[in-house]
């Protein structure tokens, strides 16, 4: 569960990036975060993963109050809240397998268990036959799938995706969305930020529209019904 309660964020020397956001996202939801450039989408995601802290208001992620997690405890949150970016952030000198394994190594898992889980996740993103390749030998869509695999290996509860399709053509973007929906279907909360409203409309998911740091609309579209209270 993620709960923004009158959260504002001002970057130093900058007017409000987010002002007085109040919203709740329940476990297992799939939420699109849309809005024009500079609306504050990235800022919301960075708050949830405690890359930054709110200037005012309270942000809760499960049992954690974001503003008061001590620096040496942040890694516990990061194991439960994983992220995917537009630029993939893969290590060019490591194979697909090694890139994904990083997500488990930091948890202190044994070698055998890592091998089993990595291959399982790679087959989920349809890359099991490319595990020995290096990122630069893959297409952009494939690289993004590796980065998703690294994020979900180890079973996070929440997956944040910031413009994951920003570098991809529409077909490949569609594949990525399919994979994110599959990840969501196994119980992971997925929040994806994008300014590409077109692909979002087809998907009929809950959509938060941000504009200039405030929530413009919060629509629940179609088959996926959110029963949790909205504020």
């Amino acid at each position, binding site marked *: 569960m993620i709960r923004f309660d009158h959260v504002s964020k001002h970057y130093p020397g900058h007017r409000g990036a987010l002002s007085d956001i109040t919203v709740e996202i329940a476990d297992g939801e799939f939420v699109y975060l849309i809005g024009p450039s500079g609306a504050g989408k990235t800022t919301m995601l960075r708050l949830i993963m405690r890359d930054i802290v709110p200037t005012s208001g309270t942000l809760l992620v499960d049992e954690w109050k974001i503003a008061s997690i001590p620096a040496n405890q942040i890694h*516990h949150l990061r194991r439960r809240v*994983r992220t995917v970016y537009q630029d993939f952030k893969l290590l060019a000198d490591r194979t697909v397998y090694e890139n994904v394994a990083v997500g488990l190594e930091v948890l202190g898992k044994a070698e055998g268990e890592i091998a089993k889980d990595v291959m399982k996740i790679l087959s989920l993103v349809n890359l099991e036959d490319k595990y020995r390749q290096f990122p630069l030998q893959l297409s952009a869509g494939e690289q993004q799938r590796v980065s998703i695999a690294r994020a979900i290996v180890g079973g996070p509860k929440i997956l944040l995706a910031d413009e994951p399709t920003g570098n991809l053509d529409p077909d490949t973007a569609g594949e990525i969305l399919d994979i994110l929906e599959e990840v969501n279907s196994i119980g992971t909360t997925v929040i994806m930020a994008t300014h590409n409203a077109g692909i979002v409309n087809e998907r009929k998911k809950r959509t938060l529209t941000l504009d200039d740091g405030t929530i413009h609309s919060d629509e629940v579209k179609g088959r996926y019904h959110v029963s949790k209270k909205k504020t």
Partner: protein
Amino acid sequence: MAAILAMFLTFLLTGFFFLTTVTSAVILQYFEGKPQITVFFRDKATKEDATSLTSTLQATGKTASVRYVTKEEALVTYRTLFQSDPLLLEMVTSDILPASLEVSATGPEYLDDLAQTIATYDEKSDIIEEVVYQKDVVDALISWSNAIKIVGGVLAGLLAVDALLIVMTVIGMKIALRRDEIEILKLVGASSWYIRLPFLWEGALYGIWGATSAWVVLMGLIVWFRPVLLSFLEAIPVFVIVLSNPTSTTFLAAGAGLFGILVITGFLLGIIGSAVSVGRYLKF
């Protein structure tokens, strides 16, 4: 590589000065345990003269021991001292060597009084060739060993600072080079120790490798120069025991002790250097 080299030089020098300091300390101890005044008699002096001087000295109540060494005994000592040098042995007969009186005072504060007594006695009888005060030798040794300690300490300190700075720089560079990887590790939830430990360990390894290679070179030098060292130090039993046989357990134990000291210091120096860099460049 630069870091290991710096560590190597540091420990080579530190180890060298450490050994020199230990050696001079042992030499000092040896001399301090020796008689403090040695009175060498002229050839004309008889056994009775010696006995008379002995009782004069003992009468002062300030002597711990007084021992008469005859010319023959002096020769025996001389022969064991220079047994490895036949040339020196041939040159000397007991005639050349003087008889002597080895005097120890009950406390160093009485040495002057005893010297005075001896001088007064000599004025009357004129049987004394020379009086050697161990104190002079010991004082000279102390000032030498202090000089070695200061020069060695300063040099080793400077080199240690240098090695520390190099380790800090190298580790800082490695951290910078692996920025992307560190960012990703933080993203997926690596604990701060998980990220820091490899860098700390790397710094420690520089220290350990530097110390180990310095140790190997030092031990090589000791084994190589063992005969020379032995001829210098053969009067002092401790060195003879340690150095006489490079495969003996005492030699190996001394080597192992030196290894332990160097490696532990190297480990600490490396850890400190990398910890400073990690603290500076790996903030959370």
